[in-house]
């Protein structure tokens, strides 16, 4: 975010136990904007899904580092979640509900929830080199109906 007024960077190993910390920290950072409690819960879900994707799909059970950069500015929150895992071969397919490359009991809804709960989602992925996911959200009262 070019004109951010506040920023937070976190880096942690791709352990499932860190997912709860990541979503709570991002929601606490986001609370400096006028998000409702429901919107903060939606941000938590989006972060949880994105970080889970890095753990499950990016690193496939091996350990690597996940970086989260949050910024607020111009009444909006931007969250970037990066890994250096295997990357996504087919980003378009990854957005399809019920599509998953993970074995058993995955619903393939992770990115569907991120899209549903955030205003904007940009995915940049290079096969074998990792994935960067940028998501943005503004408090609902800042949004102008057109």
């Amino acid at each position: 975010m070019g004109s951010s007024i506040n920023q937070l960077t976190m880096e942690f190993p791709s352990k499932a136990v860190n997912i709860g910390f990541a979503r709570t920290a991002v929601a606490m950072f986001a609370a400096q904007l006028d998000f409702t409690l429901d919107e903060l819960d939606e941000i938590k879900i989006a972060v949880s899904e994105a970080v889970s994707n890095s753990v499950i799909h990016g690193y496939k059970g091996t350990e690597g580092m996940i970086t989260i950069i949050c910024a607020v500015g111009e009444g909006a929150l931007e969250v970037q979640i990066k890994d250096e895992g295997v990357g996504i071969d087919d980003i378009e397919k990854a957005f399809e509900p019920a599509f998953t490359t993970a074995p058993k009991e995955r619903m393939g809804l992770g990115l569907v929830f991120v899209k549903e709960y955030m205003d904007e989602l940009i995915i940049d992925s290079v096969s074998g080199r990792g994935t960067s996911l940028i998501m943005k959200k503004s408090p609902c009262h800042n949004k102008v109906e057109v």
Partner: protein
Amino acid sequence: MDINLKRVGRALIVALEGELDLATAPRVKDTVDQVLARDAKLHHLVWDLAKVEFIDSSGLGMLLGRYNKISARAGSVVLMRPAVLVRRMLVMAGMGRIMQFVDSEEQALAKIGGDTDGQLH
């Protein structure tokens, strides 16, 4: 994540407390699967979700996996008292089409057809 189990006749009631995600769902899965594997007479599953504060697709996938196991026993799965956010996620994932929502244990047991052998354990 706290897991409390109770058997009522042929139903297993699983009360969860905490956040259901990739870190916690595997323990719930293992605990419930062990009980189901030990007792082939258990045909129904009631999830008491009143104290679940958060769920994401990892938690939803775990619930779906247990639904598939109970369906193989021709039983029913009931979702009891989910909070607003959790209920919203369950509905978005389509759980409402295959599991029933109820507000109390009495309603849950009624939904599974009173199939409890009249026993409380």
